């Protein structure tokens, strides 16, 4: 397998994802960017959007995040975000129920996740 970079997706509640990836595509405030191994150190503001994890030239995981920060170095990508959902395991009905129970930013985000699933 090719060289990898260590992806960490951290939310206030836990470390959601910790895995090696060939490339991570993140929604930067100034546009999407891809981070591969040996990327130069970068600190970027993120907006709401989808983080894609690439392995063997294919997208293996997709996570919806609600803005945040990315700290990219040569061997790791750390994404700090207040909310995140794994689009592969997310279930529309549960999300809908949660969106109805939630208020403000959270409900807004969950609705965006539902929209992204469609």
């Amino acid at each position, binding site marked *: 397998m090719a060289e990898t970079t260590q992806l960490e997706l*951290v*939310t*206030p*509640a*836990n*470390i959601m994802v910790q895995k090696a990836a060939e490339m991570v595509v993140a929604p*930067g*405030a*100034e546009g999407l*960017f891809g981070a591969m191994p040996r990327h*130069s*150190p*970068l*600190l*970027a*503001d993120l907006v709401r959007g989808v983080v894609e994890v690439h392995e063997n030239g294919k997208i293996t995981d997709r996570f919806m995040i609600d803005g945040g*920060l990315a*700290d990219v*170095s040569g061997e790791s990508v*750390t994404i*700090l975000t*207040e909310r995140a959902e794994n689009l592969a395991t997310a279930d529309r009905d549960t999300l809908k129920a949660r969106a109805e129970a939630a*208020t*403000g*930013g*959270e409900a807004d985000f969950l609705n965006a996740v539902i929209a992204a699933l469609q």
Partner: protein
Amino acid sequence: MPSLKDLKTRINSVKSTQKITSAMKMVAAAKLRRAQESAEKGRPYADRMQQIVNSLAVKADPSAAPALLIGNGSDKTHLLVIVSADRGLCGGFNGSITRQTRTEVARLQGEGKTVKLLMVGRKSADALRRELGDLYIDSLEGIQGTAVSYADAASIGETVRNGFESGEFDVVTVIFNKFKSAISQEVTLSRLIPAEVDSTQSEDDAGAGVSYEYEPEEDELLAAVLPRNISTQMYSALLESSAAELAARMTAMDNATRNAGDLIDRLTLVYNRSRQATITKELIEIISGAEAV
């Protein structure tokens, strides 16, 4: 000398108290495990956020830095965010927060500053309402418990930020109990605005010779990070405080259970002694009665 019946009642009542305290201890211990876990899980986020703020803050141009980082140049009005528990029966937990608040308010007022208080948790708010109630800008309840939600912390963060931006206060400090271990908590003061920057740590980071690229520019990025950092700090304070509260309750209830056990032993001794004394007395009466015949 209490009668045997009185003693028996007393022993029974202490026994039922002991049952309650030991149940509370058990509940606190079970909840503590969960609270501790979530406090630990929350740490990576807070730590990394702090690192990023540190490394940005050191590089920031002091003349153009955002007010959230360096303050607005004045320190006349202080806001203290007091984090106590909603419930009692947790030993010195709320007491020490209340005491620290009183000292801090007295100190600041002694220096001629204006103090405002934002109370989180019912206990300290109630304890101080009579003497400091007119300083309260708000008093929040029901935020703490087993599940502290980030949304609550973020909304407190927002209140603080809005107040700061509209010039209601210049310096914001949080007072909370930090969870050190299951048997000890530490009253901690942590400054939210201006942001606390650990310059030694970030110099170490910078020493590695890493030159970061920033997207967008440093100043804009800093302005985006700082508000989030406030919510994060608030969240970790709430998590720490919840874990500390449960730990304090567990220890307090453990002590109470042990004390109740001691009391039961002592009362049982007295009970047995007086029972024996009654028997002896009755025997003497019978024997001397028999001899007299």
